[in-house]
């Protein structure tokens, strides 16, 4: 052990020197999306650690405000709704005849993206005018997505949809593409306003806050809350946590721990059991993504304890658990129906109809009252309820569900 200390010390220190030493003269982060790194400042708040570098008060306030606004458009088709849109003209993109639509996808490497991807394909199928649909999967590799975007430009696309793998890193590629075709960006954003429209739901702050507020309301003052996070360093997840943190810090609840689970159910269960052991009782569990919600619930069941107030997501297995166990729970969502919108937007743009510059989709949360409307026992465990795909041809089989 001692023999290795120097080695490690070398690596660590050198990294810190290079990292911290060089950020010192870097101007503070301008927009919410661009990140700046620095050695972590001291912890603050009620056991919630330091605030994330991603936290931007303005965006936070904006998103929380949006939650109460009524979106414009047909409420039965939330993927076409928009929250106070600033319309932009797209006349210059007007085009007649068949459409060749292109899509650079970050990845399909998790259930959320799987559900969304299937919805998007179904949406494309709905429109006869789309004669060709070319989609490249970057397999979660920034570098590949960059060359994918470049490659697509050579295939005569009429419009390019991009779901960026990461924010800052894809900006150059998207900028380059903007010059050639109308670009539609959704889910994650990029650090440029060159895309015709940027589509996503209200966002991570709202997601995080929804859950946290619920707990603050349900958990008695001084009650113990455990926060579970997938992994550090993912902007979307960071915003969720930072919002939750902001909420908790203002409240009476005590955050006894913030743990990373790698989205691994087994690890989640272990972590939660450890906390139950150590603290005897946990009054609420917050999490930044629902993938491991069920595992967390089970940890309490296996420990023979009542399941406390839970925050999950709109995955079937959690909704099922919620229903069966009559849990006190809430499921903030990051709706997969947003995968339908870009296709619709593209067609609008190519038809010369104006679209919102930033297309904010509504982001409902599932509560005990609305649970039954979203719970679909015939769908696979990791299906996301807010796919907006129930009416689409091929439902439910294409989404892995069974006719019932």
């Amino acid at each position, binding site marked *: 052990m001692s023999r290795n200390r120097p080695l490690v010390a070398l690596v*660590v220190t050198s990294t810190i020197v*290079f990292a911290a030493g060089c950020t010192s003269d870097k101007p503070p982060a301008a927009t919410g999306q661009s990140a*700046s790194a620095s050695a972590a400042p001291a912890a603050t708040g009620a056991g919630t650690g330091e605030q994330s570098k991603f936290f931007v008060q303005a965006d936070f306030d904006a998103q929380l405000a949006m939650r109460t606004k009524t979106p414009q458009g047909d409420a039965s088709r939330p993927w076409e709704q928009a929250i106070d849109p600033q319309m932009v003209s797209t006349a210059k993109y007007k085009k007649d005849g068949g459409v060749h639509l292109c899509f650079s996808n970050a990845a399909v490497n998790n259930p959320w993206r799987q559900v969304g991807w299937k919805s998007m394909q179904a949406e494309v199928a709905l429109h006869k005018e789309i004669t060709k649909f070319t989609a490249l999967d970057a397999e979660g590799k*920034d*570098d590949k997505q*960059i060359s994918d975007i470049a*490659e697509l430009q050579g295939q005569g696309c009429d419009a390019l949809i991009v779901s960026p793998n990461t924010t800052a890193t894809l*900006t150059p590629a998207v900028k380059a593409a903007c010059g050639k075709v109308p670009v539609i960006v959704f889910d994650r954003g990029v650090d440029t306003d060159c895309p015709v429209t940027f589509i996503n739901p209200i966002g991570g702050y709202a997601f995080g806050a929804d859950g946290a507020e619920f707990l603050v309301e349900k958990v008695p003052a001084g009650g113990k809350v455990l926060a579970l996070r997938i992994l*550090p360093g993912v902007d979307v997840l960071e915003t969720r946590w930072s919002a939750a943190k902001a909420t908790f810090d203002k409240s009476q609840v005590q955050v006894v721990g913030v743990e990373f689970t790698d989205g691994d159910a087994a690890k989640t269960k272990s972590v939660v059991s450890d906390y139950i052991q150590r603290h005897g009782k946990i009054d609420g569990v917050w999490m930044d993504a629902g993938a491991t919600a069920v595992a967390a619930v089970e940890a309490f069941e296996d420990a023979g304890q009542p399941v406390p107030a839970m925050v999950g997501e709109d995955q079937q297995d959690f909704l099922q658990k919620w229903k069966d166990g009559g849990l006190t729970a809430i499921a903030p969502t990051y709706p997969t129906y947003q995968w339908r919108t870009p296709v619709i937007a593209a067609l609008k743009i190519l038809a010369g109809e104006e679209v919102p510059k930033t297309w904010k989709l509504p982001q409902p949360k599932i509560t005990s009252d609305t649970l039954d409307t979203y719970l679909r026992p015939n769908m696979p465990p990791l299906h996301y309820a807010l796919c907006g795909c129930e009416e689409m041809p091929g439902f439910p089989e294409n989404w892995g569900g069974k006719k019932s």
Partner: protein
Amino acid sequence: MNGQSLKQAGRPARPAVAALREIDPTKVIYLALAATLVIGWVLVAVDGGDFLTVETIVGIQQRSAALGIVAVGQTLAILAGSLDLSVAYLISLCSLVAAETMAGRDGGIAAGVAAVLAVSALVGLVNGMVITRLRVHAFIATLGTALIIKGVVDHLYDGPAGSVPDSFQRLGYDRIGPVPVSALLWAAVAAAAWFLLRRTRLGHRIYAVGGDEEVARLSGVRTDRVVVLTHVLCSVCAGVAGLLLAARLGAGAPTVGTDGGYDLESIAAVVLGGTALAGGKGGVAGTVGGVLLLAVLDSVFNQLEVNSFFKDVVRGLVIVIAVAVYARRRKGRQI
């Protein structure tokens, strides 16, 4: 898996039949590459696409440059009978170091490059030292280093950070005709490595150490030194790849290395290129072929919009089959 070559040494020459059966992996891989190109072209044509457009050709090169550079470094390590599982995290680290140091300033480029080379060389040194001085198996040693770097990076960074000046991004985007600068960089690195192995003493000794460390030692080769140097070079290659990726991404990204799967993929590419995993046999030419083959496959799949799961299956099969073909050379060794 090895130790046999050593025992071979004391044994009389094998019958000529075995000699006839010998295959030169480098030839095989380039034949396979050509075949893949043709088949790919046909498939895509049938699919109604056009395979050999400038975009795809550039795409192939762009996609393979980073992996190619890492694989060249990995080749050195494997030839010396070692291997390096830490490259993926090192690449992430280096992309960050570069972007942070440059911080968008043209003036920062030199410093950034220097910093990356320094950090990567240091990591290589640590790997080499742990392997030779502490006598830890390379597999574990570099796996450990990988974890260490991962921890540090994740701890310090919450996502893409820093930024490289546009002038540096040109490294990632400019091209001369159909040849991207990044591909040229890769070619340069590969050429350098080829030259090193073929014409320098270190090169000869890398083969010797990989072939049989004990023999090399008794012949007066300072084997530990060779192993350490090899690991430094391997890590520096990873560092260069990190620079390239920083240029491509315009920023440093804490996950770019692992998302790219550069650790196992580089090893796969090297072995695909006919370099013996046990060391002492093979070379850079093969590795380049291996990387290109993977890239072309990727590109074909892209054109045909094959989903990534199917790709993995094919990749896996290709790698195993290729190595099985090379393995026929070692026939006649078994009892």
